[in-house]
């Protein structure tokens, strides 16, 4: 067992997570380096992760049609009737009947299935496999920070001491659910604001107070909560964002839909938080996954319907709010389930399973190939993984979140798959800000071009390093028309840098990397 030693590193200042909606702390900002780095990381794009807790049965969610006869044989207790399956015209898979809305999204190229996602040496414990998925570690490796936590920690140096500040007033990530998850745990502190449940959210934005017992202790408790609420560093911005949105699409009264409703409201209200996580629990369907008399009913069907209806309402709402181009969603679950079903009308802990992406920007389609199911499958046989889950993380980091490199967050180089449509991908690769400044080639290899769009004032173009140190003055003067500046980088030492364009009213940042030879 490997334990990554740097994770034992601890912060030297008393840092704090902005957690629980209750507490957090203030420190004066801003910090100019931090703001520059933040700008570099700011993509204005949002990723919403939906954690399907318990282990989703992939084989009953996305059905490989060419394997139906074997499936009928090895999972008779839970197999879907073929005539109820939602088949696709362009892929040899079918969706579970609960996915009717998602099927229509698929047809519009706004829903993408990635088959057989897992990892080597599958762990079958919920707890451990959840930690593996959230930390992006190897199966035999102990890491106690999350992949998004590490990404955010790198993108927003100085968190939490110098946050919020004028450049990033908003939470770096928001998760709905009790407690802060490992996903957003950075190397030193948690990077998320936790909204414990939808009720808490409405308490916060409507200034309601939870009931306390009518006792002297209750009176004190009420006071403590009042002060705690006032100290919540992000309480006001969340409230302000929420209050800007008066109308939303209709959402079902399910837990998942109500969480997504909050997420959409905060995005529409202008919160620049790039990452959200919501949860849908109950996928641990050891028994009663289906009803004996009708396999299209039962716990799993209900869960998938809740997911389907929640996502559909969310998508409709995004369109209504005009935020549909900047948001994508992604599901994940700690594992899939066994190939062979059990006699309790359920399935036990398994291995690989499909992941889903949705949103206007996604590429769509089915990525990957159908698994091969043997009609002689034994009880402990499992689906092989085709994609390592970290390939998917690398893809979303690179193609959607504009991460200059994903190695640092994933502990390795993982081959990416296409999840973002071509137009979107180009934008992401060009510039995190997406406008006004482009440096190529990147990584730098000697002679580079800095392409700057017109600026209405004299500016300075500089190179700074990751610690904020000024390295080189590249250009001083006006940029009265779009201009290309030649820039030699032969002497530059390998490392991460930022090209900045700064004037009194201008700040543009482009992250660059110089690689060693």
């Amino acid at each position: 067992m490997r334990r990554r030693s740097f994770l034992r590193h601890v912060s030297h200042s008393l840092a704090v997570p902005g957690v629980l909606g209750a507490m957090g702390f203030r420190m004066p900002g801003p910090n100019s380096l931090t703001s520059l780095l933040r700008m570099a990381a700011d993509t204005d794009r949002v990723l919403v992760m939906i954690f399907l807790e318990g282990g989703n049965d992939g084989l009953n969610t996305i059905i490989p049609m060419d394997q139906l006869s074997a499936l009928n044989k090895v999972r008779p207790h839970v197999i879907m009737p073929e005539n109820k399956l939602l088949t696709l015209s362009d892929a040899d898979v079918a969706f579970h009947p609960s996915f009717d809305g998602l099927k229509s999204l698929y047809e519009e190229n706004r829903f993408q299935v990635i088959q057989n996602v897992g990892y080597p040496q599958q762990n079958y414990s919920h707890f451990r496999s959840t930690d593996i998925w959230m930390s992006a570690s190897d199966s035999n490796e102990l890491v106690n920070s999350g992949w998004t936590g590490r990404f955010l920690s790198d993108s927003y140096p100085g968190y939490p001491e110098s946050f919020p500040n004028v450049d990033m007033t908003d939470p770096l990530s928001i998760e709905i659910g009790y407690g802060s998850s490992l996903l957003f745990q950075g190397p030193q502190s948690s990077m998320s604001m936790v909204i414990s449940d939808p009720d808490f959210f409405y308490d916060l934005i409507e200034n309601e107070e939870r009931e306390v017992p009518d006792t002297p202790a209750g009176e004190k408790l009420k006071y403590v909560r009042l002060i705690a609420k006032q100290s919540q560093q992000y309480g006001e911005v969340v409230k302000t964002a929420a209050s800007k949105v008066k109308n939303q699409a209709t959402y079902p009264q399910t837990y998942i839909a109500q969480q997504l409703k909050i997420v959409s409201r905060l995005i529409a209200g202008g919160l620049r938080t790039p990452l959200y996580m919501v949860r849908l629990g109950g996928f641990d369907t050891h028994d009663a996954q289906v009803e004996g008399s009708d396999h299209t009913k039962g716990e799993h069907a209900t869960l998938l319907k809740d997911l389907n209806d929640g996502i559909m309402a969310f998508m409709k709402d995004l369109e209504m709010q005009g935020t549909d181009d900047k948001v994508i969603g992604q599901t994940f679950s700690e594992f899939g389930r066994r190939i062979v079903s059990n006699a309790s009308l359920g399935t036990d802990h398994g291995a690989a399973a499909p992941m889903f992406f949705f949103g206007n920007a996604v590429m769509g389609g089915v990525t990957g190939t159908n698994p091969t199911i043997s009609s002689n499958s034994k009880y402990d046989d499992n689906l092989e993984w085709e994609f390592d889950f970290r390939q998917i993380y690398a893809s979303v980091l690179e193609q959607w979140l504009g991460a200059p490199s994903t190695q640092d967050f994933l502990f390795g180089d993982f081959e990416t798959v296409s999840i973002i449509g071509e137009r979107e991908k180009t934008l992401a690769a060009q510039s995190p800000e997406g406008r006004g400044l482009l440096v190529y080639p990147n990584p730098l290899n000697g002679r580079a071009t800095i392409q700057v769009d017109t600026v209405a004032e004299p500016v300075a173009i500089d190179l700074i390093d990751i610690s904020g140190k000024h390295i080189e003055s590249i250009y001083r003067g006006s940029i009265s028309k779009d201009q290309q500046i030649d820039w030699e980088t032969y002497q530059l030492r390998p490392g991460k840098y930022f090209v900045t364009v700064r004037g009194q009213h201008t700040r543009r940042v482009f992250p660059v990397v110089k690689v060693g030879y």
Partner: protein
Amino acid sequence: MNNSKDRNYLPKNYQELLAKYRKVPPVLLDTNHPASPRRSALATGLEVYTGEWGDVQKLHLLRRTLFGTRQSDLQALSGLDVSQAVDLLLTKGDVTLPVNNYNDPENGVVDPEIAFGETWVNAAHGDEYEGPRTNSLKGWLIKNMLNQDTTLEEKMLLFWHNLLPIQTWGVFYAKLSYRYFEMLRRNLFGNFKTMIKELTLDPAMLLYLNGTFNNKEAPDENYGRELQELFCIGKGPNANFTEEDVQSAARVLTGWVVRWEEFEESGILPSYFYSPFHETGNKQFSAFYGNRVILGRTGEAGAEELDELLDMIFDNNETALYLCRRLYQFFVYPEIDDAAESQVIAPLADILRTNDYEVKPVLEALFKSAHFHDEANRGAIIKSPSEYILGLWRTLEVEGVNAEDLLLGYTQHNSFLWNMANLGMEIGDPPSVSGWPAYYQMPSYDKYWLTTDTIANRAIASDSLVYWGFWIKEGIQIPADLIKFISGLNHPEDPNQMLRESSRLLLGMELETEMLDNLKSILLSGQQTDSYWSTAWGELMENPEDDEYRMVVENRLKPTFQHLLQLGEAQLM
């Protein structure tokens, strides 16, 4: 209220030394809090409590008398009834002497007089070394709190220190400050009148409230006033002493001085009566004291006037009432309504007088009473910084740095000191001679402790213990071992019982089922089957050295305890 007289014993660079060694400037908290609505009168009085006597009731007693409650404290009460439990709490142990644990050659701190590991309590004035000695004293006080047994001793010391305070940075002579605390400790369950007499003659107090500068040529009323207003009589509705009484008391007290000629020498610095400074005229007191006249005496006999003064003050009914009110506010509930005054305070004051101001019988009666154990008092006080910070550390069974390493121990206890100072409570230096406002300032009282800053800093402290470790110094941060903590509970394997037991030890109120379920859902990472936790726990217990099993359990416990400790209930006791 501090003196303006020349304290020429202070080092010339006193202000610099303060800036160097007093790491956190005094934190004055905003006292603008809403008053609590009057609570309805309780029917209970001083009759012995005979109600239910389970963990919930025991923990109420322990929370109020200790700094945080440990599983071992609860076990210490096992098999004891209320009365026996209180008797146990009113026992005293021994403490070791504070020593030079601050020598730090690397940073240029080497006390020329006291060797590393030797006590400094008899040291001559050490000029700039009074800085680290004072911090050594304060750290030692904190160490004693952390290492307390299941007794009231340390909490009672804090009670007296708050009621009869000095400011150690003002005294800036650690051996004198030590003597003051030693005097409080010697008398803490003893006789109030004896305590006040010793306090009056205590060299640190003679410096702090200028008694030693009070002489017939230049009377200083500071101590004469506080003796009545803050220490004995108080400011109750019937505390009608007059300015004349203040002046007369000050005149009685003239002549009591520290022995300046021995001031800078090693050994115990005595105070003594120097008759040439004594005002020999008669001292007239007001109707509040029955128009008493203390006849002026000359020569050594002048010293006897002090006894007469104390007799007069302790003959007054208000003195017994005042102490009982302060005990009640500190240990039971900060506000005293008419019912509490008549059913608890007045009979307690009777006990105090009947026993010639012996304090122990009063404490026995109070802690055994139905009123103290009244359900309405449970959880109704906001924890002070010491109860919160040291309580977390104790309850979670955090092991500090290696006790053999004295310097590191000094650093650790100073880390607690400054952490608590940031939260508004610097042990050894209350903000004024009145003590900490949370214990006396109506109408906010204990609400005084909480501001948006201090509550966030409290959360940082609990988060740091759960995640990255309580900061001791650069490179040393000590996290709580949550696995070890829950191992000490009765049912760590059962998520429901484990959370119930943990929350009772850490929180001031019983959690509702819904809240416990929320905590459980964190513990189970959203799974709905309790046995997943029991299995994970069982696997770790069978393979205690296995990193993977350990991390699985830790990753469940951390967010659970983070949430638990950020509940408002965690601020209450």
